[in-house]
């Protein structure tokens, strides 16, 4: 019998230890696994390598793990909006690998599809191409980029069921389904956990086979980086 349910974030991340390589879903603060990040801070694991499009802000998201100096290396496409990050980077405490956003997404995808590498035109002729194999197809140059290897993928979904099937909402989908496919162990926190059979199979974004542990998160803050509105006429 399938047994993927864990009680909470602390149980979900119980075997994440020092030096682990983690994937964390989200774009900016949108769709980040808030509960698991808080649990990682509580557990105090160190020397983590985090693969995530961004690094949070000073007091939220991955920024919380930077503040406690738990992160050794970030692999991201964009890391602005974070003063503590900048300080650690300039002082040499933190290692950073910047890669194009599409390359980041596709290297996750390749991992989840069981493919060792991909070819992409992003970065040809730039410093991103240094030391990488270049191949020409149909007269255009492409870089060879490898699939990621990660110990754990930690994702946030809108709804999930007891089989681990996931549905994401709006732009909080972003990297989450790709990373869910790419972890050796995938942990999903969801806003609403329902019994198997309640989600419409046609609506599933991530089939449960990719998800090892699932729990219903609590107290989602869902912080917004830039609230932009218009006035009613």
């Amino acid at each position: 019998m399938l047994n993927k349910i864990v009680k909470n974030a602390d149980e979900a991340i119980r075997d994440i230890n020092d030096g682990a390589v983690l994937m964390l879903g989200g774009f900016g603060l949108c769709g980040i696994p808030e509960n698991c990040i808080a649990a990682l801070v509580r557990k105090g694991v160190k020397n983590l390598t985090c693969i995530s499009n961004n690094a949070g802000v000073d007091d939220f998201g991955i920024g919380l793990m930077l503040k406690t100096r738990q992160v050794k290396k970030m692999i991201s496409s964009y890391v602005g909006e974070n003063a503590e990050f900048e300080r650690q980077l300039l002082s040499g405490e933190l290692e950073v690998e910047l890669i194009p956003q599409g390359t980041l997404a596709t290297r996750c995808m390749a991992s989840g599809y069981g493919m060792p590498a991909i070819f992409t035109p992003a970065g040809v002729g730039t410093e991103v191409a240094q030391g990488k194999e270049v191949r020409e197809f149909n007269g255009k140059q492409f870089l060879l980029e490898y699939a990621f290897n990660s110990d754990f993928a930690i994702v946030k979904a809108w709804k999930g069921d007891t089989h681990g099937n996931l549905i994401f909402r709006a732009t909080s989908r972003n990297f989450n389904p790709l990373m869910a496919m790419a972890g050796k162990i995938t942990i999903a926190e969801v806003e609403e956990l329902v019994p198997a059979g309640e989600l419409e199979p046609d609506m599933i974004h991530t089939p449960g086979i990719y998800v090892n542990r699932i729990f219903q998160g609590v107290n989602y803050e869902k912080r917004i980086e830039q609230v932009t509105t218009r006035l009613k006429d």
Partner: protein
Amino acid sequence: MLDKFGIAKRIAQELRDGYYVNLGIGIPTLVANYVPEGMEVILQSENGLLGIGPFPYADEVDADLINAGKQTVTTTKGSSFFDSAMSFGMIRSGRVDLTVLGAMEVADNGDIANWKIPGKMVKGMGGAMDLVASAKNIIVAMQHVNKAGESKLLSKCTLPITGLGCVKKVVTELGVFDITPEGFRCIEYAPGVSLEYIKEKTLGRLAIADDVTEMSV
């Protein structure tokens, strides 16, 4: 001379009915405000949305619905959501008709630099390298000169490159420039700007089109 709104208005003249368009952060975002009446243009956001609508009313703000600049937005009729790999898939496979980006430097062969200033804090390229490597039509919206008054239209980029030979057109406060084998080809000048002034402020190779006209914005 144009202000940033003028630059955005001029770029909006490049839109065509039915275009799928990716707008970068800064001046490019403003282009959305000048889509000609009666024309349907679908805006792509690289974080996974086709059909970006206007900013929400205060009571509609949704933390799960943002654009690539992390601002809250809404959707238009017929919009769709997708993951980040598919987002760059539609860019890489040439489905996006027009990409408008800001830049720090553009070279007269179409090279672009817009992600890194050595010695300053490096924030990352985000999706810029993917966009410039794949988009079939890239227009750069930027100021003609930097804060020190130096030309940003060069014979060769001095800053780290984002992509090679990819820019098709540059629109600045001074004029509109096509990238051609002869370098920047000035096809329009902004109201009140002389061709002599444009020559003075452009370091890369510059050709003036025979039919150069004053921009109408």
